């Protein structure tokens, strides 16, 4: 499978509807074929991942979900898929050092802070896809 031609499968885990809409829009505009699916909460995300025949190219995880759900989800993902296999990148409204540290400790592959500007969001996700998807698909 070569990179740019095939649809890239992305799952994003986001509880807030408005943010979910913006992420979806940004991914769609990324300049490559992206199939983005949204999970509302960690349980749903795990179900999705479990039910997929092929692992997605990238999982985006919002941290600010109730009961530390984001960090828990990272751990659950890591317990089943390694970093090489499934990049899980945090996409959070918080840039707090404590959150960053817990995310990495739980196995996050990267940490992105949601920007105010849509344009910034779009280029951020673009870069993420380039890095993680292209990186993972070595020729």
């Amino acid at each position, binding site marked *: 499978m070569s990179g740019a031609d095939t649809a890239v499968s992305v799952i994003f885990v986001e509880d*807030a509807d*408005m943010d979910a*809409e913006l992420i979806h829009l940004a991914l769609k505009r990324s300049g490559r074929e992206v199939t983005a699916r949204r999970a509302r909460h960690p349980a749903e995300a795990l179900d999705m991942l479990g039910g997929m025949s092929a692992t997605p190219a990238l999982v985006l995880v919002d941290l600010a979900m*109730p*009961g530390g759900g984001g960090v828990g989800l990272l751990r659950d993902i890591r317990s089943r898929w390694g970093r090489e296999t499934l990049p899980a990148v945090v996409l959070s*409204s*918080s840039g707090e050092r404590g959150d960053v540290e817990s995310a990495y400790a739980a196995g996050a592959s990267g940490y992105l802070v949601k920007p*105010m500007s*849509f*344009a910034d969001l779009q280029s951020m996700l673009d870069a993420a896809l380039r890095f993680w998807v292209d990186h993972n698909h070595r020729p």
Partner: protein
Amino acid sequence: MAGAAQRGVVGDPGREPLRMTGRADAGGHDALALRELLSAAGIGVGVLDADLRYRMVNAAMADMNGVGIDAHVGRTLEEVIPRIADQIRPLVQEVLHSGASITREVRGSTPAAPDRERAWRASYHPARVGDAAGVGMVVEEITGMVEAEHLAEMRLSLLDEAEKAAGIGTFVHDLETGRVTLSRGYVTLSGLPEGVTEIGQDEMFARIHPADRVVQVGRIRQMIAEGGRMQARIRTIRPDGEIRWREVFGRLEHRGEDRPPRVLVVAVDVTERQRAEDLINALAERQTALGRASAVIARGDDVAEVLSVITRELRHARVRGSAVVRFDDDLARVEGSRGYIPVSVGDVVDMDPATAFAAVPAHAGIGRVRVRPSLADATGVPEWRDVEMENLTIAPIEVDDRVWGALLVTTEHAPDPLSDFFAADFARLVAAGIATAGARGELRRMNAELEDIEAERTRELQATVAELGAFAYTVSHDLRGPLRAIHSAAELLEDGSVDEEAAPRLLRMVRESAVSMGALIDDLLRLARLGRQPLEPERVDMEAVLDGVLAEMGPVALRRVELVRTPLPAVAGNPTLLHQVIANLVGNAVKFSRDRDVPRVEVGFDPEVDGGAFRVRDNGVGFDPQYADQAFGLFRRLHTDERFEGTGAGLAIVKRVVERHGGAVRADSEPGVGTTMTFTLPLWDEPAAGAGGNSG
């Protein structure tokens, strides 16, 4: 001159030898030799004829008279020794007349030394001068002896006076006869009748105080057996019953191997000294007791403990018993008591602060106090009883310029001159102790209160700080979401890159974001205001509150909801705030059970739970119980799913209000089954409904 020992007058060795008068009728060499001998011995010899004229004298007599031997012959007594003739004439006449010898002491002066008082022992005997009767005279000068006797008598009399003045007496105990010869000083000392000069040894020993008798007899025995001297301080009893202290010094006087010795004793009355020593010891003990009590007072901070220790210290100062009485409203109550003082703690004493110290301090040989047990201890009406105490001293205890109470002290001995000061000193100490302990206790209480307040404030502060921290975190999150949406939507609309169907959706995003930010801000304000609203509790009928909330929610929201309610009691609180609590909880319950086929909400009150608790139960999605604590954290939402709209401030508000009312709230849930919110509030104290109900 009874009891006189043999004494002789030695002749003057410088005299010239006896001169013969030439009258030879004295007869022969033997007679001459005898007269010479007598003269040499200082014994005057003379003869008077029937006319009582001197017929012959020897040299010694001539010397005594101070007249020459020849000058005597033929002269009368009056002519030779005019000053003493009147003493002698009746004597010689008697001898002449009765023919019996007479011996007498003669005192006076003779021409030998006209200014000097002398004394002679003269004996007169019938004599024959030729055929006629006469009187023979034998005279011995005893002037020195008499003077010595006189001196001895003077000395004895001085000694008696000295003994009396010094409170000393002496006696000689003859162990052979068992008699004791007493000096006049001793007689005075021991209170025996004047004129008594001796008593038996049994009576002597009987005078010793029974407590000291056996030991003293032992001492004497030991002295007799081992020799040496004896010194002891013993008590004796005078005939009138008075007890006096004696220091006795004794030694033995031996008189031969086979005869028991005599015991010579000097007895000194040391009663005053002993009393002074006792007083000094008592003072020293009292000072020590005062010192120790002071130390306790310096440390004490509990009035009861101070009183207990003080009465205990008093015990050491030769005080038989002590009690502290406190004047409380109209009663005088025993607060502490120790040792022999027949009142108990709690007893009521008939003592009036105004009159109890008419003579301050007051003491009595026998003190009488009226006492009764306290009402609490008595069965039936407690009776007054009179309590008599020997050697009772009462001193006032003054604290803060008023008479706080009284100190009662009974002593072993009659109150001595300094008892009053001692009792007053101790009473002052007790007062100081009470004041200090009271102040300390007060200080301690205030400190404890301050510490409690400080701890409370610190807790509040920490809670506030924590809340602020959470607040800052979640506000940033909860505001950023809508802001991001607004920003991004505006961006997309501005650059015109959206298609027609996207635009209305984006605009709706903007509006909804604005609304949610507005709601967040409102909640923030409400929460802030909560802290500053004074809670003025009034009677709040929770049934009415629930009715109000349900009416407010409206029939639409409650459509399909199965509402179960049980009677709710009235509480003491703020109706507006409590309305918010019910509105939040019922609102949540309805909201979270919305997805069920049959949403069920229960509102009730259970008197058995937590001493009486309200509950709001729903059969909604529930939450993970391990996150129950977070439920009430500011803005922590357990379901941030925006299907369940509303900010997370609701539960924080509920918690804040309930706790301000003095209650507590908790959340229990089983995911997928339901949630129960339980909270307590102070119930309104309803007066008994109708007559015949129980009071209280």
